[in-house]
């Protein structure tokens, strides 16, 4: 069972539908007690870093999630959920992330205010990208900030004016800046690979 963190930031339904398509059951988690019911967690999210960190705090989820991450249990941060695994963000003066990686999110300086659309992802050999053809490694992005390219554990990079970390892994915690649930076949393969990484 996968827990999808529900803290009022982002569209959870599309994540759930992609998991369901792959035969993975999921529940939405809005209280700490519900964490006992799941094996792996997805932290989705859109919006501003500071507000998201604040919402996790007031939902009483910040500490239990920090513990989950520190214990090295299966975790996937998507988009803002990946950024929250860093320390902080240029986007918000206040709000601390989970500091799994010792980096701060930076503004992406591309032709448009935010990076929206499909982009090429240059990945390293990692089980997460298994069976995804390198030449067809396009994923769907929607973000204005990102963790920098030199983020520790980075396994994939992309570029929109600024190069940035498109994915990283620290133990069993992954972060992806793109939306696998909206990245067509590639995204579905990636989510399936993620499922397999729990047991390694």
């Amino acid at each position: 069972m996968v827990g999808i963190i529900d803290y009022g930031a982002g569209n959870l339904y599309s994540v759930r539908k992609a998991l369901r398509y792959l035969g993975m059951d999921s529940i939405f988690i809005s209280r700490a007690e519900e964490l006992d019911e799941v094996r792996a967690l997805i932290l989705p999210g859109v919006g501003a870093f500071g507000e998201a960190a604040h919402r996790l705090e007031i939902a009483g989820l910040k500490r239990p999630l920090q513990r989950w991450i520190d214990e090295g249990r299966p975790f996937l941060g998507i988009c803002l959920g990946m950024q929250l695994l860093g320390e902080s963000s240029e986007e918000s003066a206040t709000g601390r992330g989970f500091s799994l990686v010792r980096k701060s999110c930076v503004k992406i300086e591309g032709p448009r205010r935010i990076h929206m659309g499909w982009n090429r992802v240059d990945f390293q050999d990692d089980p997460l990208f298994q069976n995804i053809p390198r030449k067809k490694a396009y994923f769907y992005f929607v973000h204005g900030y990102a963790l920098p390219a030199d983020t520790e554990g980075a396994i994939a990079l992309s570029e929109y004016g600024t190069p940035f970390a498109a994915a990283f892994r620290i133990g069993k915690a992954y972060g992806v800046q793109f939306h696998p649930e909206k990245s067509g076949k590639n995204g579905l393969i990636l989510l399936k690979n993620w499922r397999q990484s729990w047991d390694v």
Partner: protein
Amino acid sequence: MGCVRVIPCLDVNNGCVVKGVGFQNLKEKGDPLLFARSYEEQGADELVFLDVGATVESRKMTLKLLEEISSEIFIPLTAGGGISSEEDMRSVLRAGADKVSLCSAALRDPELIRRGARAFGSQCIVISIDARKAGERWHACTHGGKQDTGIDAIDWGKRCRELGAGEILLNSIDRDGTQTGYDLELTRAMSQAVDIPVIASGGAGTVEQLLDGLQQGQADAVLLASLLHEGRLTVKEIKDYFREKGVDVRC
């Protein structure tokens, strides 16, 4: 640097895909789910569903359709047509849309853009602007192009951006369905006026005209309907042509 997007648009009425010329004479074309599957298979980057009937009955059909499509197709889906409140937005997002497209309601109540962006994020709010040539400029229209608001379309685009819109879907009413090419001046004027993506719509009939929309019109994406529905072009043919011309597209 990011790919340009090719976006099929399904105008839906009572659960069927329809498409007319100049927003009139809607003709039935077929089952939206079959269209959606086929476009996804061909490599469409996103899909847009516009409920052109937007009656209560038609809306219910559209929600059901979104449910079905979003359960098996995992590319971004935008839904529009008759959305006039945060409640409407919530119901299409719950049904599986990733973005909502607002047109008349945003002109009536611009603050709706701000409220929508605050509740669901800017990335979620697409403002559809139906523009009609008025002298040297263009006016924003409503009701499928029938009513001229007198508001300058480019100024309206800028205002939408300030209120928190994430994208602009720019449709030329003069060109819609004519296959004589995009209104490139309009497209370029909007693209330069805002720093959010502009999706060009209305008038393209050939791959060359589509490319013009991206290069001369400086659009970030192209929206297509009848050209695809009638099978005169496929998404793959369009993308192959773009790639050949050095434009980065997803494969």
